[in-house]
Each structure stands twice: as C-alpha cells, then as structure tokens.
C-alpha cells in the first residue's frame, strides 16, 4: 500500500467524524465555532450545480479566507435579516478521492432540512461537499469546502452556511 493510500485509510473515520461534528456545529447554532473548522488560508463556497456542470464559477457564497468566514458570522448575528429557522444536516459517509502529503480530498452527500416558525420541516438544500482536508498536526481542518447544491431554487434566501 502506498503512503498516500495509507493516509487515506486513516483519514476515513477522521473525516466522517469531522463531518458529523461540522453539521452539528451549524445546526446547534454554534456559528462562531464554524470558522475554526477551517485553516486560515481556506476556501469555502456554496455554488449551484448548474454552474459547476457548465464550468461557470459564480457562487452564492465565496469566502477565500478564514476572516471572510468570520465576517459572514458577524453579519448574520448583527446585520442580516432572515426567517427564523432551524437547519438539520444529514451528511453521508465520505468517499476519499485523493491524497497529497498531509492533505486528503473527499466528497460527501448532504441534505439540509429547514424548519421555520410555521413548524413545517422542508428539504431546504441537497447537494454534495467537495473537500480538501488538512490533517497536519493531528487535527482535521478544512482547506477547502465546495458545497455544490442540486436544489437550484433557493427558498427565500440562503443565510446560514451549509
């Protein structure tokens, strides 16, 4: 087994654990903690599948630094107006797609259910994460996360991260 393959094998459970914790971090409204799940020099984007499939780069969120993630959170807390809601992430088992040094790439399907004040739970956003994880220093951090959503029609608006 190559070194890279060994890294990938060890990474599987670490990444699945990470994704489960990532979803709960958002769903439990611990938004301030969310940027700490990324390395400083990170990329986080939420992009429509129709754009990805057509080679178009425009995303509804595009943050290429941890600072930009933190700015999003401050804006959500202090400035932005959006429907009161709970989100619920269900994230599938990750599929490791590659490895390079201490970095591992993986993909995982997700569904976000949303419940607003009327009490109805709706499928809000379905898609997949396309990720690069940084496993250096014994911790798992996101180097990049691209949320590619199938749900082309965003209900009302998309405020809290996916």
């Amino acid at each position, binding site marked *: 087994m190559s070194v890279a393959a060994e890294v990938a094998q060890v990474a599987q459970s670490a990444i699945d654990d990470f994704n489960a914790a990532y979803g709960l971090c958002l769903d439990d409204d611990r938004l301030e903690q969310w940027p700490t799940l990324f390395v400083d020099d990170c990329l986080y984007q939420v992009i429509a599948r*129709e754009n990805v499939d057509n080679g178009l780069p425009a*995303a509804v969120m595009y943050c290429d*630094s941890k600072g930009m993630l933190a700015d999003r959170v401050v804006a959500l807390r*202090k*400035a*932005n107006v*959006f429907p009161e809601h709970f989100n619920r992430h269900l994230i599938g088992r990750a599929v490791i797609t590659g490895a390079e040094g201490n970095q591992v790439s993986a993909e995982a399907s997700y569904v976000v259910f949303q419940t607003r004040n009327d009490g109805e739970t709706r499928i809000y956003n379905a898609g997949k994460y396309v990720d690069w994880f940084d496993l250096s220093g014994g911790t798992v951090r996101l180097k990049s996360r691209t949320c590619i959503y199938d749900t082309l029609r965003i209900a*009302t*608006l*998309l405020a809290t991260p996916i």
Partner: protein
Amino acid sequence: MNAETMPVAAGSEPTAVDYAVYHSQAIFTAEQENIFRGQTWCYLGLEAELANSGDFRSTHVGNTPVVVTRATDGTIHAWVNRCAHKGATVCRSLRGNQADGAFVCVYHQWAYDATGALVGVPFRRGLKGVGGYSKEFNMAEHSLERLRVETFGGLVFGTFNPTIAPLDDFLGPVMRKYIQRVFQRPVKVLGYARQFMAGNWKLYSENSRDSYHGGLLHLFYPTFGIYRQSQESAGLVSDEGYHTVFTVSKPKGDVDYGSFGDEANREMQGEAKLQDERLLAFRPEIADDVGLHIQSIFPSVVVQQIQNTLATRQIVPHGTDKTELVWTYFGYADDDDETTRHRLRNLNLVGPSGLISMEDGEAVELCQQGTIGAEGKRSFVEMGGDDVRPSYAPMGMDENSVRGFWKGYLGLMGNALADLAAEGRA
C-alpha cells in the same frame, strides 16, 4: 400619461395600492394578458448566453415558458415552449446547443427549427396508406407561437405584441444610456442563482425601486461602520414612470474606498470591523465613480452593478405568491482570472446569500404574509411626495420610483382592475 389623467383602478393609485393586487388570482391572470403579453418588451436573457448558433436558453415571459435561440444564420428567435400538436413542453433543458437546429417534441416527435417553424411530422401521410393527416394539412400553419425579438446593448427582449414600438423606444434614451454604461464592452456569463420567494412579483418590483429601505433593512454597511453618508446619488424615472435607475457614487475626491471605510468607521461608530476587506473592495472600471447602479426595466428585469458585481435579475411570476428571481452574474469578456476572483468575492454582497441583499427575499415574503385577508386595505407610498418625478435624489428618502412603477402598472392594466372589482372577482 400624467398623474392627473392616470386611471384609478379599483380604488388603487400610485400612492395607495389595494393589497388585493398581491393575492388575487383574477388580477394575476389579467396581468399576464395586459402586462407580460401586452404593451411591453420582456427580458429574455443575454446575447452572451447565445454566443454560438444553435445555443438556446429556456426562460419565461410572465408565467409563459419561452425558449430563446440563435439560429444557424446568427439571428435570435423566441417561441413559446408549447408544442403545436398537443401542447407538450418541447424543449426540456434549461440551456444547451441544438447543433442541427431541430427541437423535437418527445411525445410524437414533431420537429421545429430554431425559429420555431415546424419542419417535421412523423407519419404525416400515415403508415402504408392508413392514417396520416389530410392533404390540406399545412406545416406552416402549425409553427410554435413566436415572439418579436430585439436586442439592446447585449440584452435580449421579446414581446407578444405585434404593434408595440421598437425596443429602443420602449426603453427610452435614459434607460438606454444606463444599460450601455454596464454593457460598455462584451460580457461573459459567470453563473446563475435562482431564488424562489413566496410572494407576489410586484413586491419584488417595488423592492428593487425602493431606495427608502436600503440603509434600514440592509444593516450590513452600518454594522461594519461603512455607512456612506456623503455619497452622491441620482435617480431617474422614465416618462411612463415604470422604468427607473438609481446610482450611488463615491464621495468626490475620495479615491480609496478602504481609507473611506476607516474614516466612516470613526464617524459612524460601527461596532464590528471586517476582517477581510477584499469582500468590499471596489475597482472602478467604468469611467465614473459609480459604485452602485440599480436599474429596473419594467416589467421583469433589474440590471445591476454593485461594486464590481454585474448581474441581471429576471423576475418570473409563477403564481400570486410564487416568484422566482433568476440572477445571471457576468463579468467582461476580457477579465483575467484575478479579476474574476475579485468579482466572485464581491458577489458575496448580492444574490440569495448577499450580505446587502438577502433581506429583500424576506421583505417580499413578509409583505405577502402580512397582507393576507387585507383586500380593500391600501398601502401608503408617500415618502418624498405623492407624484412621480423624472428625477430625484434617492438617498433623500423618496418612494418616487415605487410610485412610478404603480403609475405604469395601473396604466397598462387599464380598466382590468376596476372590471374585476365590479365583477366581485378582485
């Protein structure tokens, strides 16, 4: 039409509109006829989306599904996406290229070319002499329903109306000048976002013309201490009232947005500070200092430049309380990769997740929800006066453009609202 002669339909006037207009199915149906299929040109897409012959894009005029195409001779066409045989949807994709020019209905394989002409009918003469159409069957009489198509500055418009004046006249000189400002050089599409609001299309049309709410609903700028008090702004309204553009420029003599942000931070005591100001960075690329340009072309499109974001927002009314907003983001064709990345960062400001725009979706839904059961009650649109003026200062807190929208709307609806009210249907 001036304010004095404007029809007052069903008790509505530009300063006070009956909330029934957001809820009545009968009014929605009348709007399709009087507005979207009436005396208007409706946005269909960008020429840049139809760069090559055979390219097509599915779109809507009002709630009518329409396909816009580029034929092999380079001309642009639009037709209703409804098979002339049994009404099936002919083109089932959002976009693509039909290199052979044939749009084939899957149901019985009637085939149409890019212009909408029927070019093939299977078993037209029957099978082994049995069945088939009569000798009188004339393919030319069974084409798809076509729209008139014209373009301006890279925008493609269509109309169902055979007699309306050309697009240039519909837009008028002021709107044309501002469209040309954004479409100053060839553009390339960067992508799409589609937002679905549980609200009436007119609530969004009003919202895009409403400069009063900017600093009050969208609290991003003041929160981060970048509220820009001393900016110059201008608002212009077309003759009929229903198109509008407003622009906001950087303060004179201030070339660096970053330092301005710091100065404003001190002035406005913003609690928070942006950690990554690249999100807001503005690189003037048009020969003026305008950092915000929002242009609402009646009835269904908004053209915008906010910082270095460029977009059209197409308003698609699917029902009284179902409105889709299709954001088409673009840059200039000669943008390098770094410029594109800069635009992507700026795009955080706009769209369904936009730090200064997401609230609009919520405002539309709040007004829809709040006006349920409020037929006969009316809105109050008198900020800045009760008339519609051709120019105004939108930062001066003025609903002039919103009144302009209603003036144009009521004019086009003519007696429809009053008739429906008399019939007890709205």
